[in-house]
């Protein structure tokens, strides 16, 4: 078990190194003079030179890279220009909002995609198979910001089922006591059902918009891998031995078919983390995506760089976790390592 964990960790190291180098390049190597930018439009050449020295931009690139690594190791991503606060602290306070939205969207996507894929494979060629194909093709074609807006219009403006698309909680409600930062979990833990319901209502539309966008790879892969497994010899044997269709499908087929589905979760997360930015913008969700978009508008680069790095590291960590879960679920992988 420990060996498996260590070997997976070792595969993540090149990714992390790559991510750090790319984010460094995004900050330093590209055209434009950050010193002139930080100094403002009316700055004298002397002031610009001073700021350049202060920021360490007069040093050679390898030296700057070492400095950058040093900053990263101390958890220093610079300060936001518009608020003056350290970027790390601002991202840390906003991260739970994004994480709650993304994970909830993932749960919704899995809850729709896997039954749909299994049904499409079991009843291949019937209407449910066609429905699966339509949903997956339409799902990846829908711009997630557009679905979000459409939902807001239909469910908030027309039907008034959903609350106003502005943030994690209604303005008249106070957030639950901070335990995990996830409103759903915190309000459930403190037994505050009213807040739980309020948070769930705010969460529903953005999460569903994200889920629709990202369920296609899951549903397609579930269908494909179920079809492959259902056609194999051991399923024929199981059927011939007189096992009930339910046992054959769920115990024999599904448990084998789910393995390739786990590997597509990486791609699903790539979709979700990207969609997260757009959905947060539409629903004024106070997460790191909205934070980065607001910083982009005011040309405040440190938060944007911090955001890209945080997202990339999260993504590498998620891929690592997926790899690890795969190893736990599939005993064959465990033996190989």
């Amino acid at each position, binding site marked *: 078990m420990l060996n498996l964990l260590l070997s997976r960790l070792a595969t993540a190291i*090149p*990714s*992390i190194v*790559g*991510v750090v*180098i*790319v*984010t460094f390049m*995004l*900050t330093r190597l*590209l*055209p*434009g003079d950050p010193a002139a930018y930080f100094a403002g439009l009316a700055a004298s050449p002397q002031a610009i030179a001073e700021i350049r020295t202060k920021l360490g931009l007069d040093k050679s690139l390898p030296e700057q890279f070492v400095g950058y690594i040093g900053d990263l190791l101390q958890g220093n991503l610079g300060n936001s220009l518009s608020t003056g606060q350290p970027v790390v602290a601002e991202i840390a306070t906003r991260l739970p909002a994004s994480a709650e939205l993304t994970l909830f969207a993932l749960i919704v996507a899995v809850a729709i995609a896997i039954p749909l894929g299994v049904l499409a494979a079991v009843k291949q060629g019937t209407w449910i198979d066609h429905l699966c194909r339509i949903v997956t*093709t*339409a799902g*990846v*074609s*829908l*711009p*997630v*910001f*557009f679905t979000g*807006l*459409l939902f*807001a*219009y239909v469910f*908030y*403006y027309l039907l008034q089922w959903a609350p*106003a*698309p502005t943030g994690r909680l209604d303005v008249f409600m106070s957030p639950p006591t901070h335990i995990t930062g996830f409103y759903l979990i915190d309000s459930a833990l403190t037994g505050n059902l009213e807040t739980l319901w309020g948070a769930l209502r705010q969460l529903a539309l953005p999460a569903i918009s994200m889920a629709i966008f990202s369920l296609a790879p899951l549903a*397609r892969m579930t269908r*494909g891998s179920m079809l492959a497994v259902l056609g194999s010899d051991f399923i024929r044997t199981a059927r011939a031995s007189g096992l009930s269709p339910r046992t054959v499908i769920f115990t024999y087929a599904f448990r084998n078919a789910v393995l390739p589905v786990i590997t597509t979760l990486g791609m699903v*997360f*790539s979709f979700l*983390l*990207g*969609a997260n*930015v*757009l959905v947060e*913008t*539409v629903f004024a969700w106070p997460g790191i995506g909205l934070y*980065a*978009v607001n910083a*982009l*508008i005011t040309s405040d*680069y440190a938060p*944007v*760089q911090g*955001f*890209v790095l945080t*997202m*990339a590291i999260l*993504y*590498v960590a998620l*891929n690592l976790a997926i790899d690890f879960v795969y190893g736990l679920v599939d005993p064959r992988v465990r033996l190989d390592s």
Partner: protein
Amino acid sequence: MLPLLRHARYVLSENPVTGLAFGLFALFLIAALFGPVLAPYNPLQSNAAMALKPPSAAHWFGTDQLGRDIFSRVLVATRLDLTIAFASVILAFMLGALSGVAAGYFGGWTDRIVGRLADTIMAFPLFVLAMGIVAALGNEVINIVIATAIINFPLYARVARAEANVRRDAGFVEAARLSGNGEARVLLGHVLPNIMPIMMVQMSLTMGYAILNAAGLSFIGLGVRPPAAEWGIMVAEGANFIQSGEWWIALFPGATLMLAVFCFNLLGDGLRDIIDPRMRT
């Protein structure tokens, strides 16, 4: 050529949806080529007296907050959106196919460097990386093209690498080498043309994603700037009016965008069926 056409007709008759996608594609092409001529109004001309009017006979898609005709803007935006997507797909193809073919053909260090580069790009959530690239390079349309090309690069490089690797020791490659062709000539004149059909499928499959990505970037205010007509930015402008019930400002550009992406995704699937039936799912 004739058998391919016959096969194409067969696939189209099997799958009428692909035919529909081809029809839609033709419409988008016409809009992209002749949009500015066909548009009934000047897409940039504001008219305060006509602001925020719902769809009518005079303004099919209604007017926006400045009284501009949304139908004209959606029509004219087609050229910009499709140009961004085409340019980025072609750039991704050139970068990805060349380096991928070289990696698959030569192996060794070339392979390792290209592979590591692709892995590094894939280590990012792709849209987030595109955001970072546009933010760093500067807020210009050309940088949206570059960013979209970079995030699509690994897909092309991997497919090209796998296909070139299979053909590395094929008979026709050996023959080309024995007739005295240099490595570069074998690579570009013999290996690359043979993987072109698969690369074409890849291009049409990523086209929809490229449109979506570019529109997403301009939705959050990157690249295309107002008052330019572009679908993503028009949806962003309309977003401010959704809560007060003016649905048409965001709906029409958004629906057009969706239709374009849908069309290219179907087209990609159809093209794949025509060119490479083995990949059919």
